[in-house]
């Protein structure tokens, strides 16, 4: 399989100060992710999934070791450089949709492009396109309060996708959705993965997500206990 690597994690350790001592949330992680992956990080609550995604998204830094994301060493980035990395190359999808309530669907999706200072015409085209991807063209002027949970999460996906990032990090994107909506947004993301070759990394313990994943990494107590490629499995079975 000839795939270029976009994330390299080497001997990564993350400790949080707790009381007088430390709590080790991630314990010597070594992983590598390639372009176009559709991968899930699974594991029980507290196993370190969110912590790992936060580091990959340059929202947090490793205590020891290194995570290299799109050729950037996370531990060496300044605030500004980290912001640039996120702005230019990474999209986030959260468990709670975190749409800005005072803005319309269109404006919520537009926001990342305003930060990129994209010219107005180009921007409008990209926003329309992203909203089309998630099938919400008819809700373009709605406010988040007028949307269902599934629709809100689709807006969040459009917002993550609108700048066509190389990497999308999704933390429990289906946790608040019923099964129909979960499948809908997973199919949406699967399609984007196929069409745009965007790398998706999920943190989840939702069974419904598993069936879509091409690779499942299992964390327990901050350690990788399993790393399976589903295509291989399927091919083998």
């Amino acid at each position, binding site marked *: 399989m000839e795939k270029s690597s976009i994330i390299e994690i080497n001997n990564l350790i993350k400790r949080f100060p707790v009381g007088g001592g430390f709590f080790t949330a991630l314990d010597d992680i070594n992983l590598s992710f390639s372009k176009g992956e559709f991968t899930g990080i699974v594991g029980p609550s507290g196993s370190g999934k*969110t912590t790992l995604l936060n580091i990959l998204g340059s929202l947090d830094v490793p205590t020891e070791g290194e995570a290299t994301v799109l050729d950037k060493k996370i531990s060496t980035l300044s*605030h*500004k450089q*980290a*912001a640039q990395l*996120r*702005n230019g190359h990474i999209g*986030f999808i959260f468990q*709670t949709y975190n749409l800005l309530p005072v803005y319309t669907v269109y404006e919520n999706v537009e926001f990342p492009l305003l930060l990129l200072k994209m010219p107005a015409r180009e921007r409008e085209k990209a926003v329309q396109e992203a909203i089309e991807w998630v099938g919400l063209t008819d809700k373009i002027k709605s406010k988040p309060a007028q949307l269902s949970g599934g629709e809100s999460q689709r807006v969040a996906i459009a917002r993550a996708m609108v700048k066509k990032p190389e990497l999308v990090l999704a933390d429990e994107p289906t946790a608040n959705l019923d099964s129909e909506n979960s499948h809908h947004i997973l199919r949406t993301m699967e399609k984007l993965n196929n069409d745009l070759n965007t790398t998706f990394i999920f943190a989840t313990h939702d069974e419904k997500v598993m069936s879509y994943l091409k690779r499942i990494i299992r964390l327990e107590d901050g350690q990788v206990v399993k790393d399976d490629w589903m295509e291989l499995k399927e091919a083998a079975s």
Partner: protein
Amino acid sequence: MIKFLIKGLIRDRNRSMFPILTVTVGVSLTVLIHCWVTGIFSDMIDVNARFSTGHVKIMSQSYLENIDQSPNDLALMNAEDIIAEAESIFSDMNFTTRIRFGGLLDAPDENGETRSQGTVMGLGIDLFSTNSGEIDRMNIQTSLMAGEIPNESGEILISKEFADNLEVKLGDPVTLISSTMYGSMAMQNFTVVGMVEFGMSAMDRGAIIIDLADAQYALDMVDAASEIVGYFDDGIYEDEQAQLVVKDYNARFLDVTDEFSPIMQSLRQQNQLDAMLSYSEAMIGIIVFIFVLAMSIVLWNAGLLGGIRRYGEYGLRLAIGENKGHVFRSMISESVAIGIAGSFIGSIIGLGFALYLQVYGFDVSQFTQKTTMMIPNVYRAHITPVAYYIGFVPGLFSTVLGTALSGIGIYRRKTADLFKELET
């Protein structure tokens, strides 16, 4: 981007309404109090200017040195010339002589024997020439409680209170006993034609007013002047302009080697008004400062609450790729917009109330009946040019300070923690 943020600001009432209201209230109070304090002090100064100091005053240097005793023996000679010169140099000013004198007023019975007697504070002012403006300046018409203003030589106005004490009625003859400029005894008969009450205890106790020429004649001071007061034609005291006039005048006429040469002083230099003016300026400063402080604390808390409410939003914006500085700056710009809006509305409201108090005033006479200070009975607010912008100082300063203080939280928190707020 800015348009985007303004849209959010306008749509989110919590974010805009409460702070704008806070600023509006604080600013309108600041403006109103500023106008009010300015009004009170300018009324006090105005009274002093009218009755005592003039906007500027010309005296002999030795008179100035002993001004507390009103030493008429140190008066300026050739008053007419001095006035003519001054008016030709300062064409927008009006100068007039005043003579203050002490003495006794004697009310005789039918036989010419003393019936009653009292010490007086005498004032000789120009009552007869049409352009002196003294009658208006001293509010004599409105202060007249009985009788009329003298219109010929030998007539005298006395304060109502004093007249009652002496049991003097309109039309009664009285004799003024004083001393001439050269130290000999002066006696002059007058007829009481009017009684006045100025509404200032300082004036009402023992004041008599006679025409300037009568005073000069009685005191052997023809063409002499103990004080020459000057007023700007518009009747408004402008401190800076007055200082320029004083400087110019003294440069021309003051001769330090001749103690009888004239010297000019501004209102501010007299009667400790300098202290009062400084005090009023300091007072306004303190008031503005207190409002800045109070509003900042309120807005700081509002900002903190709003900020905590919005940590999720900030976290999200950071996650999307905005950097912390940009988020912080956008908060500050928001607060500037709120500060301007609130200050604008607040200034209009404050000026509205101030205008009302400027036009209708606030009667404090029932509280000040016993006072001996030269203060007026009706206080008015006074809208100065400063009032138009002074509200923006606390308005802007407090919103920006409040936001900056709450915004520092963003810098202190780690991005991941801000981001965590999203999860909750």
